[in-house]
């Protein structure tokens, strides 16, 4: 959650609870609602690393609240993250390892592995179909996330077919 919080703080200084709310608003249902304790723990670590700093703001009748802001180091860190290309998914696929190594183990035959994996992917796809039906089209970040997951799964299934043609 470190970089998410840095990105939100790049917009404006905020206290912990505001950050939690901002995360929920930005992602809609695409991101599980963060636990406030986790937000504070992460902020503490970011402060220790010098990426954010906190100032105490006095409040009448209540304990001071800490407002966090981004440091120059924090901004550099964030910029580096945003600017660098992101690692593609599935660079090291565990299923691929199983498929290649299965004959050595003498346990599973490749056709059985492929068939089981196909059913598993279709079951995941079926969950995504349900999810798409239950998600409001106005929740655009979530819709895009679901569509992305579906496209990845389709690619995985196509690739499974290639494995079957070549290896089984």
């Amino acid at each position, binding site marked *: 959650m470190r970089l998410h919080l840095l990105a939100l703080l790049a917009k404006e200084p905020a206290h912990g609870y505001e950050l939690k709310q901002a995360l929920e608003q930005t*992602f*809609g*249902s*695409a*991101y*599980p*609602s963060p636990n406030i304790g986790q937000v504070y723990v992460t902020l503490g670590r970011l402060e220790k690393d010098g990426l954010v700093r906190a100032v105490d703001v006095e409040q009448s009748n209540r304990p001071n609240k800490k407002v966090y802001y981004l440091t120059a180091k924090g901004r550099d860190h964030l910029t580096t993250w945003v600017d660098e290309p992101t690692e593609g998914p599935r660079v090291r696929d565990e299923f691929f390892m199983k498929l290649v190594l299965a004959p050595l183990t003498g346990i599973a035959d490749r*056709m059985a592995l492929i*068939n089981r994996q*196909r*059913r598993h*992917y*279709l*079951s995941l*796809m*079926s*969950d*995504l*179909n*349900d*999810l798409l039906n239950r*998600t409001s089209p106005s*929740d655009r970040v*979530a819709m895009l*996330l*679901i*569509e992305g*997951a*579906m496209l990845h*799964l*389709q690619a995985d*299934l*196509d690739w499974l*077919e290639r494995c*079957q*043609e070549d290896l*089984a």
Partner: protein
Amino acid sequence: MSAVLKTVNLVKIYQDGAIPVPAVRGVDLQVEPGEFVAIMGPSGSGKSTLVHMLGGLDARTSGEIWLDGKRVDTLSESAWALLRRKKVGFVFQFFNLVANMTVGDNVELPALLAGVSPKVARERRESLLGALDLTDRADAAPAQLSGGEQQRVALARALANQPSLLLADEPTGNLDSRNTRDVLRLLGKVHKEGQSIVMVTHDARVAALADRVVSLFDGEVVDDGRIARRRRGTAGEVIDLR
């Protein structure tokens, strides 16, 4: 309840000059009423040949095909055609609509051919066009529609006579994602209402609607099992964002 479809050791061998080319090699398949079966497999695995035989569009080399408890592979071509009007709906990747009839008439025709009363055929036409969001295209000619719209019409037509079995061969093969979604929605709906479906598809979204997936490889069934449905929750809970 008896199976809506059953095949016994179904075989298709094409003759390429002097060389016999086996396309389907002994398929035993049973589909229960209301079941939705997806058929998957690499190209050349025999999927299309299989559904074409099931619909009587391609003659089997040996084996048996039973539809609604009646053996059909031994029927004459004309008897097959007659039975097909009543019992089988077919959707292909290319829609094969009747070019000089309106969209609405294309959808209504199969029910009329099957001997349904004009009133019922009309009602069915209206409800299918509505479900596919095509009501205002009813008077258009097929050529005036986009590919996606034409495929929705083809699906409506296949369902018009409430067939015992809907056979489909890559019905979304040509569609963009929005049109695929409309077709998916209709398939899901008719399946829920009890329509039996056997569908060849590469599209995982479509296959995932099925109750069961049958995988073909080299003309044989290498896997046949149910698709589990498991996780509930929001996008953020179902999809891992790291």
